[in-house]
């Protein structure tokens, strides 16, 4: 399979990339790792006339700190995340989830920026970003702005990105020391998108949940923050009733598509199970 013809651009700065995307308009697409876009182009489900390859922009790759936040450049790959001691130590749920994305070859190329900016409900990082309260830096023809991950996703492949804008960095507030975390992903095989997945970050105090955030992957046209489910476990010791309430509250906001991964009822049911498992595993890790 051969993609349609396109012109290739390789800008050396964000400003040049933004100018190209603004000038070329809707016929242009930014190219990050390419492991979503290139297969789509080969299937002719996407036929951009111009590709603006972001690999030539040195400043878009890397993991650093800004106060108590981890700042990750958009072109940082999943492999880079897995190799980072700071990620493994301070935001270990990112490490755990990155290992569940696709396969080793794809992780060498696939980027965090592409994963969060594409708006694909099957991608794993967006629900984590909601759970962690992350902020995205968007740079466009009218300058730079910060948008909360919670405000970014509007529909399947539909986000807050305006024409000409590029997502350049992800900023993640480092969770409290001793927090518990888990990303539970049910999938049919290695490399598959989630049938349903749940991210949990929580803190415990005296055997009870003190704070909790829950994110859901691939059970709606956008990633979801399961606020009521998280509220249902705060102050509890995660006993059977609390877990059941949390699963039910999470299932109540799910609206998955029926596809080869299963009918709607099944995907909601296993989504609830992923929430309960993630809560239990996160609590067992909390100090």
């Amino acid at each position, binding site marked *: 399979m051969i993609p349609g013809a396109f012109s290739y651009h390789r800008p050396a700065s964000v400003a040049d990339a933004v100018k190209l995307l603004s000038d070329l308009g809707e016929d242009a697409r930014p190219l990050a790792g390419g492991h979503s876009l*290139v297969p789509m182009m080969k299937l002719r489900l996407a036929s951009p006339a111009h590709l603006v390859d972001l690999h030539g922009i040195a400043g878009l790759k890397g993991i650093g700190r800004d106060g108590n936040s981890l700042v990750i450049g958009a072109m940082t790959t999943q492999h880079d995340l897995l190799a980072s001691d700071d990620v493994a130590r301070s935001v270990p749920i990112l490490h755990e989830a990155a290992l569940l994305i696709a396969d*080793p070859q794809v992780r060498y190329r696939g980027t965090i920026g592409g994963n969060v900016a594409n708006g694909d409900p099957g991608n794993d990082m967006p629900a984590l970003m909601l759970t962690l309260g992350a902020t995205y830096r968007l740079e466009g023809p009218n300058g730079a702005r910060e948008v909360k991950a919670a405000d970014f996703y509007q529909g399947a492949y539909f986000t807050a990105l305006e024409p000409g804008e590029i997502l350049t960095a992800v900023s993640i507030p480092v969770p409290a020391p001793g927090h518990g975390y888990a990303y539970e992903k049910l999938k049919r095989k290695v490399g598959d998108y989630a049938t349903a997945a749940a991210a949990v970050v929580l803190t415990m105090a005296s055997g009870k949940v003190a704070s909790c955030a829950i994110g859901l992957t691939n059970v709606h046209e956008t990633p979801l923050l399961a606020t009521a489910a998280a509220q249902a476990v705060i102050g509890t010791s995660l006993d059977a009733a609390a877990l059941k309430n949390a699963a039910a509250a999470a299932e109540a906001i799910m609206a998955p598509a029926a596809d080869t991964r299963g009918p709607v009822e099944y995907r909601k049911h296993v989504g609830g199970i992923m929430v309960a498992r993630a809560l239990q595993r996160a609590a067992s890790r909390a100090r």
Partner: protein
Amino acid sequence: MAKTHVTMKVNGAEVEGLVEPRTLLVHFIRESLGMTGTHIGCETTHCGACTVDIDGMSVKSCTMFAVQAQGSDITTVEGMANADGSLSALQEGFRMMHGLQCGFCTPGMIMRAHRLLKENPSPSEEEIRMGISGNICRCTGYQNIVRAIQYAAAKLNGIEFKEAAE
């Protein structure tokens, strides 16, 4: 569509060519360079038969454009033998452990295993299986492929390979 001049290093030799932007790296390697060891399987980034090593990364060459490989250092299965032409530890492992049946997946398996052993010289069976999870084989059930990689790891570490009891 105007063609672009690209240069890169493949198996230690400088190569060049004219490519359309849409030319996939695997097509450049097979059709322009005439190196047909790198296979095209699924063409949808699943099967890993087209895996090559680019600047220290295992990459599915069907999911990258040749223009993106400008200036890079690539190793394909043709570059895997020892300098004197004898089989490398991995190639020997695949031969000795019967790590291939139809052989279609083999170039990708060897290139992926090459990078895996560079990053983790003594992988567990579980680590080998996760390490080749981006490569699909339909006729060996992976058993002998895993043994082949264990054989190579043992040889590279200078220890005698002992097969696990059946």
